[in-house]
């Protein structure tokens, strides 16, 4: 197994003022780029959804309505800041930042390109490359729960509270599956650093994790991350029909804008994360153009990320919302066993082939046992609504996995 340099090459020659400057510039550029893309993302989503629904969407402000988001922001900025009477003032004010900051921090570990050399300094095109890399993302997804849960609680209102409780349960549930798919990636790479992860996928499309690990971790990851973000079709947290506006019902003005901002920032960040973990990050075909070779990885990265951002929008446009119990069911009974089993199989194959098959056999046995147990468990629970047969998810593989038992019973 290759040993990766886990330390940022920038710091190879000690920390000087120049290095510090570069770090600051990286942070500022990263922040600015993210904010810029958020405005674009909001516009993009509105436009795309409009197209899917045969509407026109924003068009007044700027070319193709590009400045619509800015206008919305200005409007929100000048709106009255309401504080509910029953609210817990401090927590109420704190919550939006707890959502926003993790989204920003997560973005910092994403490698958006290769390396450039400026004035003798080798610069990774990512804001930071901590040795624990991908764990930062997990940590931040853990933190972002607080924003949601506290926002709902501190509002001092029933529906937001209910939404928070749902959110916390949902996020915890899906974090396990998320974590295990990441472990699969880390197992294959042998490093936690995002930099190393993309480097390991740099040698052609067959090395991309999406293919190398079998498609399963990728699919599970996409589903789990969608649930983490409370994006449709997992947006029971803000289900309008049940919970008014979700956890941020009581928020208004700038604080509301922060939630909004964070949501879209998260979409971008997580798209980028999927690209980094499974689709090779900035990897792609680089034409041999002098002095501009460094641009192409960035372009590849942007292209892939945009593609994924579109997938999210597509989900939103195309899929109906899950019911809460279905959502929990999916998380605990399908995704967690699936990702765990797959992780074991991958680990087995990493040792050698026979271990891999052994693991696969074990997982198969466990699967049969679990199916039986779940079936019985459903039977024992007299008072719970029956699960719905057709699950509105894209991807035949997943449907096959998740629906097998109900289909069997149909026969």
């Amino acid at each position, binding site marked *: 197994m290759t040993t990766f340099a886990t330390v940022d090459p920038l710091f190879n020659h000690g920390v000087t003022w120049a290095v510090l400057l570069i770090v600051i510039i990286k942070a500022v550029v990263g922040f600015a780029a993210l904010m810029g893309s958020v405005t674009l993302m909001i516009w993009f989503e509105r436009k795309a959804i409009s197209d899917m629904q045969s509407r026109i969407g924003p068009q007044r402000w700027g070319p193709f309505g590009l400045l619509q988001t800015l206008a919305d922001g200005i409007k929100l900025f000048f709106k009255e800041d309401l504080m509910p009477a029953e609210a817990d003032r401090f927590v109420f004010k704190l919550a939006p930042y707890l959502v926003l900051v993790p989204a920003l921090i997560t973005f910092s570990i994403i490698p958006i390109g290769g390396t450039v050399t400026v004035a003798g300094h080798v610069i990774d095109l990512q804001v930071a490359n901590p040795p*624990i890399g991908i764990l930062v993302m*997990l940590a931040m997804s853990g*933190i972002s729960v607080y924003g949601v849960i506290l926002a709902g*609680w501190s509002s001092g209102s029933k529906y937001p509270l209910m939404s928070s409780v749902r959110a916390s*349960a949902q996020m915890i549930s899906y*974090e396990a599956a998320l974590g295990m798919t990441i472990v699969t990636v880390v197992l294959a790479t042998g490093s936690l650093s995002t930099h190393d992860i993309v480097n390991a996928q740099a040698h052609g499309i067959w090395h991309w994790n999406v293919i190398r690990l079998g498609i399963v971790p990728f699919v599970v990851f996409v589903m789990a991350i969608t649930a983490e973000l409370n994006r449709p079709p997992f947006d029971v947290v803000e289900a309008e029909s049940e919970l008014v506006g979700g956890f941020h019902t009581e928020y208004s003005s700038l604080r509301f804008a922060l939630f909004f901002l964070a949501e879209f920032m998260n979409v971008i960040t997580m798209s980028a994360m999927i690209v980094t973990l499974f689709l090779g990050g900035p990897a792609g075909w680089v034409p041999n153009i002098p002095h501009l070779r460094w641009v192409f990885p960035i372009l590849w990265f942007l292209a892939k990320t945009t593609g994924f951002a579109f997938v999210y929008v597509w989900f939103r446009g195309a899929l109906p919302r899950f019911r809460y119990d279905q959502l929990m069911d999916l998380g605990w009974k399908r995704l967690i066993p699936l990702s765990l089993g797959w992780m074991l199989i991958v680990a087995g194959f990493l040792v050698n082939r026979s271990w891999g098959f052994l693991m696969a056999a074990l997982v198969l046995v466990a699967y049969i046992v679990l199916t039986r147990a779940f079936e019985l468990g459903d*039977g024992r629970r007299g008072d719970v609504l029956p699960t719905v047969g057709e699950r509105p998810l894209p991807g035949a593989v997943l449907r096959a996995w998740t629906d097998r038992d109900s289909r069997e019973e149909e026969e």
Partner: protein
Amino acid sequence: MIAATVPDVLVFVTAALLIVVGALGVLAVKNPVHAALSLIMTLFGVAIAFVAQSADFLAAVQVIVYAGAIVVLFLFVIMFLGVDRREHVEVEPLVGQRAFAGIGVVVTVAGIVTLMAKSHWVTGAVAVSGQGTPIVPGSANVREVGTAVFTTYLFAFEATAALLIIAVVGAVLLARRERRRDEIDEATASAAPVTEGSDR
């Protein structure tokens, strides 16, 4: 030991402030949610202290496990039970118990610190067992921690499996709605024919 640089001291002070203020918050505030928030503050302080002592991996795990799961679970239960807006308090079960506890704890902590100081803080030989893997300062030590867990602490690691299983079984059992045999007989009698096609 090389003298600490200004940034190091700053990091320590930040961590210490976060830890102590957070801990005092848990100790003092009434509202359990606020206490949980204070707890998070302490947890972050500890995470910073971990990073400052080249335990990056543990810092990440600290945030993921403690902040990401444990405290969320706390909040979840607080909200689930709706105990957040009140704390039934202020009956002293034993006269002077709190003062007694306070004095006891202060004396104990002072005693421990004094004993540690008297023994110059650490007396163990450096890597005495020879089984542990040394720490490389400045790196994340993920590999080293992993190696230690799967060699020196292999058995402990396996025991954690048992621990977690028993904890999950226990928690499920505790939180489950109670049923007795007569109820279940009833339930299965009515549910048995339904199970066959219950998914519809």
